[in-house]
């Protein structure tokens, strides 16, 4: 049964707001709408639940940290640290997001309509059936996918600051697992020394079609048009890039 509740977050400190959310979930409410959110931290953090929370405004740092199952719709921009160590669930951000989104994320999906900051998907990893996914509609700052260990990272470059390139420097630096797809091409000098571009396979096309399809659905965009452009696929050279770096003392 569908149970809805609306909470006006205006001027409410994050502790009280998150308490209210958790209390509602305890009461089996499965759709929560938060209005006038501005800067409250840790929304959705550490929650194991299948409910949906929609957020109007600008949620604060560490949105959905350790989150385990919720679906979050953010109608606004998200700040730094979204999906930090997230385990499961879906986040759909109808704006931009800040730095270090998806840090050490192990599962779940994050879709960002706009652009993201520095160090996005840093140390994202996969384990057994858990394969995290981040799709960014706009552009990304430097250190995109820094020491990524697993999961799928897709960058579309559909929008964003005009003067900004689709991705900053040190893209995939230290990457040792997972796959990155970037729409269009990336200059060689932007790539970390541990990654290389490889040919797209049929499996890649299917995978892209699936996730870009979901992205397009979330934000009402044209999937085919997005897929019409070729993508660059980046994977790490090997799983242990620093194997030869050390010598026993």
């Amino acid at each position, binding site marked *: 049964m569908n149970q809805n509740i609306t909470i006006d977050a205006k001027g409410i400190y994050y502790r009280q707001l998150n308490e209210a959310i958790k209390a509602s979930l305890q009461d089996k409410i499965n759709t929560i709408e938060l209005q006038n959110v501005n800067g409250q931290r840790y929304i959705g953090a550490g929650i194991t639940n299948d409910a949906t929370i929609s957020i109007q405004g600008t949620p604060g740092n560490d949105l959905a940290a350790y989150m385990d199952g919720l679906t979050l719709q953010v109608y606004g921009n998200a700040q730094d640290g979204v999906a930090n160590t997230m385990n499961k669930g879906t986040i759909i951000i109808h704006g931009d997001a800040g730095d270090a989104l998806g840090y050490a994320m192990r599962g779940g999906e994050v879709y960002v309509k706009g652009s993201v900051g520095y160090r996005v998907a840093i140390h994202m990893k996969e384990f057994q059936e858990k394969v995290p996914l981040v799709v960014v509609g706009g552009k990304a700052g430097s*250190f995109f996918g*820094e*020491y990524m260990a697993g999961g799928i990272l897709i960058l579309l470059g559909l929008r964003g600051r005009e003067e900004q390139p689709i991705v900053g420097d*040190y893209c995939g*630096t*230290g990457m040792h697992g997972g796959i990155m797809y970037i729409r269009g091409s990336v200059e060689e000098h932007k790539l*970390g020394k*541990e990654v290389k571009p490889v040919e797209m396979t049929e499996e890649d096309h299917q995978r892209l079609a699936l996730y870009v399809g979901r992205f397009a659905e979330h934000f009402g965009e044209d999937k085919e048009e997005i897929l019409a452009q070729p993508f660059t696929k980046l994977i790490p050279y090997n799983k242990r*890039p*620093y194997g030869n*770096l050390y*010598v026993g003392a």
Partner: protein
Amino acid sequence: MKVNYLMPEFLIDRDEQRCTHCRICVHQCANEAHLWNDKKKIVYGEDQNCVNCHRCVATCPTRALRIRNYPLEYKNNAHWTPHYIKSIFKQANSGGILLAGMGCDRPYPVYWDHLLINASQVTNPSIDPLREPMELKTFLGRKPEKLSFQNGKLAEALPPQVELDIPIMFAAMSFGAISLNAMTSLAMAAKEMGTCYNTGEGGLHSSLYQYGENTIVQVASGRFGIDPEYLNAGTAIEIKIGQGAKPGIGGHLPGEKVGMDVSQTRMIPEGSDAISPAPHHDIYSIEDLRQLIYSLKEATNYTKPVAVKIAAVHNSAAIASGIARAGADIIVLDGLRGGTGAAPLRTRDSVGIPIELALAAVDQRLRNESIRNEVSLVVAGSIRCSSDVVKAIALGADACYIGTAALIALGCHMCQKCYTGKCNWGIATQNPKLTKRLDPEEGAERAANLLRAWSREIKEMLGGMGINALESLRGNRLMLRGIDLSERDLAILGVKAAGE
């Protein structure tokens, strides 16, 4: 019967079970410590001749050899240690000045070992050097006090700079003191790693001109091999006033070492002694230094920075300030432990001061006079590892020279007998049978590997401190703490005590 008072220093321990009397050691030891008895068809050792260079040990195919300290005990005496007794024997025997190779080996405090490095925890992040940028680029040369701009452009071009990818260079070692193969190894490694080697005072062999961008050419009191082509061949010129191993003393390359190649490179007749006077005879005062500096600049059209190298002595701070004001672009300080091919032992071991203290004093003095940033400061003399480099930079050095460490990378085993010309590792010798033991390609790879490994370690430590460009460590003494040092030492080093 005349008794020889001198007992051997080392004992050659041959495992008779393993030894096949193949005679490899006989061929390998230029000191003739392994001999062949043709009658008995056996190899035997002459302990007296062994200098413990490990060459025979490393090359013996059956691992039959071990070298031990000679098991000869002197009666315990904290004052009259075997070293002094043996020295007196030698001098009473010969009336000679004691000669030694490499640097001071006395147990003076090693200040590097009393300095500890910082790391970031919480309040600012450490940085992953493997994945994030980590910059070691270093520029040596004069910097203007400030830049001026005209319509958004530089009003004046920068004075010439030596651009280094890493803050470690190979110290001056002349052709003559070391072999051409050793020099070539260093030149190639310098090129590979984006740094410089230094010709020393022996001129530049024709085969090395190709490494010009990675060469610092030296001008010393003997002025060997110096002509306009030489001066313009490198990326900078270094005037050598003194060196840490023998401050105040000149040099002497015996005629035996002056073969054809050395003769041509030094531009002196074959077989003649190459003598470097103690001072430059055109520098008897600081204003004369200025004259020499500018004559070199003039001769090279002001396109090369000029460095002045001095041994670290008591008054280094004031001297360095004078050198900066005399127009030097780079000041090189060589500390007490700096190595050499040959130096009088007592001078080597008792003259000068440790580089750590000299560096701290000079850097602070130049700052007190507001001219530190205008000159570069390079230190040499006992840099053993990457953390020594880090500590030197934090104390205020722009870059370091390594000499001994570079030779060890090439195979030197620190027997300290470089002055004999019989270096079994093909480094400190001109004997073609010995020099061919060092393959320049292999040597270059080893020397480059050493720099590579140290650079990685430096980056690791920088990252730990939350620093991603070496310049932010330079003179950053807050990154150091002293351990087991007196108040006075701490004050001179300008560091706090650990725990403070």
